[in-house]
């Protein structure tokens, strides 16, 4: 990977973050936000930025690397960062699920996929630089647009809410969300069968 290129992209992205980042984010949020939970303390701020850099950085690494193994590693950091971010958002259950499912499940699946499919794990499929740049530019453009919208959107926030307890979630799953829950189960079953079918050894 061309280092200059890397730097260039990083610069672009961070400039975008700076441009669009929450300069006056807090001012935007309702002053009448209920003070049920304390406003974010300095630790939260630090954790947020660290996690943000970790997530975005590893994601960018995924985007820029050509090796699929490195992508998996990047993915690990990215998923982990997101899980931590969930903890930061006081969604502990989701954070745990994220860790178990993503890091423990999907990531492993991806790694298995990599191992099963690479005739040599270091095979790289390069896309043309130009295409990389164009797609990056388009993504950046989209981000700028989205950021603008998100930034200027008058979100009716109420300030930080109480965390949702696991009990509540469990009850919700078995009452109001019973049907989607069951459906999810069915989907998983079907997926299991389907995946097994798709990946089976063809007999000739």
């Amino acid at each position, binding site marked *: 990977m061309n280092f200059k290129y890397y730097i260039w992209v990083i610069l672009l992205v961070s400039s975008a973050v700076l441009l669009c980042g929450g300069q006056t984010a807090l001012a935007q949020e309702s002053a009448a936000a209920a003070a049920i939970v304390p406003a974010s303390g300095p630790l939260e*701020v630090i954790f947020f930025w660290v996690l943000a850099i970790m997530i975005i950085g590893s994601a960018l690494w995924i985007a820029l690397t050509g090796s*699929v193994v490195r992508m998996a590693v990047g993915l690990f950091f990215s998923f982990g960062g997101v899980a931590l971010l*969930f903890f930061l958002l006081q969604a502990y259950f*989701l954070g745990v699920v994220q860790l178990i499912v993503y890091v423990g499940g999907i990531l492993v*699946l991806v790694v298995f996929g990599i191992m099963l*499919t690479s005739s040599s794990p270091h095979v790289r499929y390069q896309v043309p630089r130009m*295409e990389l740049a164009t797609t990056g530019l388009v993504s950046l453009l989209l*981000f700028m647009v989205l950021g603008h919208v998100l930034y200027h959107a008058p979100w009716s926030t109420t300030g930080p809410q109480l965390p*949702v307890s696991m009990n509540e979630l469990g009850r919700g799953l078995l009452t109001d969300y019973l049907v989607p829950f069951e459906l999810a189960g069915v989907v998983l079953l079907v997926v299991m069968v389907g995946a097994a079918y798709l990946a089976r050894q*063809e007999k000739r």
Partner: protein
Amino acid sequence: MFTAIGLTHYLLLAAMLFCIGLWVMASKRNAIGVLIGVELILNASNINLLAFARYSTGGMNGHLIALFVIVLAAAEAAIAIAIVVNLYKNFMSVDVDKAATMKN
């Protein structure tokens, strides 16, 4: 802006992760790379959901939807990997370009 964190920060982070995920999807010839891009996008959506759950009056809806997203993402990943393996069996490659051009 660096001293206090609000909804907008999370949303922007999610947007950025989404765009990077998109970029990954769009710039990988490796099928697994494309899959990874998709996973990033799904993560971004989950961040959004939980951020809104925290900063807005939605109760546990955001949590549950995120939960379902994770479940479906897992399912999707399983299927996708199966497809990739199958693709590999057929083409001896996971290059999606080859899959596009080497129609039988």
